[in-house]
């Protein structure tokens, strides 16, 4: 079982879409929201995803295809 921390950023048109619920229904992924900031114009959610690495990758691709921006929560650690 792998665990990945990601940040989803939603634009206005996607705010009402239950993307995270669908992600958990369509894929064998446990979604666990840790922090979020959602307004009626935009929103971001930081969450932990648990499942097989490949299943998580497929799920994230599906999320991207729906127009949600996906970024890793680990920030750059390589410094100058």
């Amino acid at each position, binding site marked *: 079982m792998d665990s990945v921390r990601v940040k989803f950023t939603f634009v206005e048109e996607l705010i009402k879409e239950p993307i995270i619920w669908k992600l958990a229904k369509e894929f064998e992924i446990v979604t666990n929201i840790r922090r979020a900031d959602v307004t009626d114009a*935009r929103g*971001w959610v930081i969450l932990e995803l648990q499942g097989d690495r490949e299943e998580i990758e497929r799920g994230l691709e599906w999320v991207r295809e729906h127009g949600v921006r996906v*970024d890793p*929560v680990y*920030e*750059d650690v390589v*410094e*100058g």
Partner: protein
Amino acid sequence: MSAAKTLRCRECGRDYPLQPSNVCEFCFGPLEVFYDYDAIRRVISRERIETGPPTMWRYHDLLPADAEAAIDIGTGYTPLVRAPNLGRELGLERLYIKNDCANPTWSFKDRVVSVASTVARQFEFDTLACASTGNLANSVSAHAARAGMRAAVFIPADLETSKVIGSAVYGPTLVAVDGSYDDVNRLCSELGDKYPWAFVNINVRPYYAEGSKTLGYEVCEQLGWRAPDHCIVPMASGSLFTKIYKGIKELAWLGLIDWRGTRMSGAQALGCSPIADAYERDSWNIRPQKPNTIAKSLAIGNPADGYYALKTMRDSNGGATSVTDDEVIEGIRLLAETEGIFAETAGGVVISGLRKLVREGHVAPDEVVVAFITGAGLKTQEAVAPALQPPLAVAATIESFEQAFEEREGALPLTKAV
């Protein structure tokens, strides 16, 4: 005895014991060192600081490590110099340069690594590690050598030889990773989870970052216990930017200086400017970028402290700017030719960024402005070399010299009477 009390989540405020950890287990927010300020207030004074060592450890009361245990290779208390020539050029009456090129490994990273290595040894780590393209690698290698620790330094495989030597000389285990920048990032994040090593910018990051505060303390002390009106700081992760501000605020809270509402402005290279971009969009949302700039020491596309840097610039009525690579070179040359200070590319970003901020009216001519130069130019010679004139090539005769000189520089002075 350090007055550091807990690690506190910057998002949800949960406290954790002082341990090697950088992320809140509850909300994944970043952790920051929290101090017992009442205890600090009882002991600290200007006199106590002034009689301390001529290094950053004169401020040990405000650092999360004990001074007696410090891994101190002579870092800090670097020159703050008045810059009248550059000031005239830019239209500023009271411009100062904080020259952090003067640190032992020639960059401000010695400040953060001095704290990180001290704390790492107190936590009984035997290995100091980092992922770096230059300055951080140099500093980690040097401090590990001094501390008698092993160093594991991860660099991209295509790094220039000159930068590798600046680390290799201290005897670390240098690991050249075959892969993209993102691959190096991911590998080091995974290694940080797997091995009991002190990765200075991962698991001991909360302590490491505190070292940057000393730049704020020093500038205030060197201005005669006065805060600057405006600081111009290069931004990579954004950590340095926020910590200089924190340092100035702490001195004011503790009554060592008067609060003057110091403004904080940050500069980035256009080819990697996620923080300046969010500022210009008037957004709190940092969009990660793929870095493409000669200012490699600032090339962090997904900055850990970007949000907090935005908050600092908005809270302080400061701003952000970004400059092209050509302007970076211009900035390096301008500083060198007016004040005799040879900065690395990050310094070029700061000087050109300052020029832009002045032209746009964000910096007032009569403000006490401090520009932070965080690394020495010999580290990034290849960036500036193509823009410089080659030496005059002459034969060993007076005629040859005079001809070559006048072709380039114009008439020679009148000869001395004999």
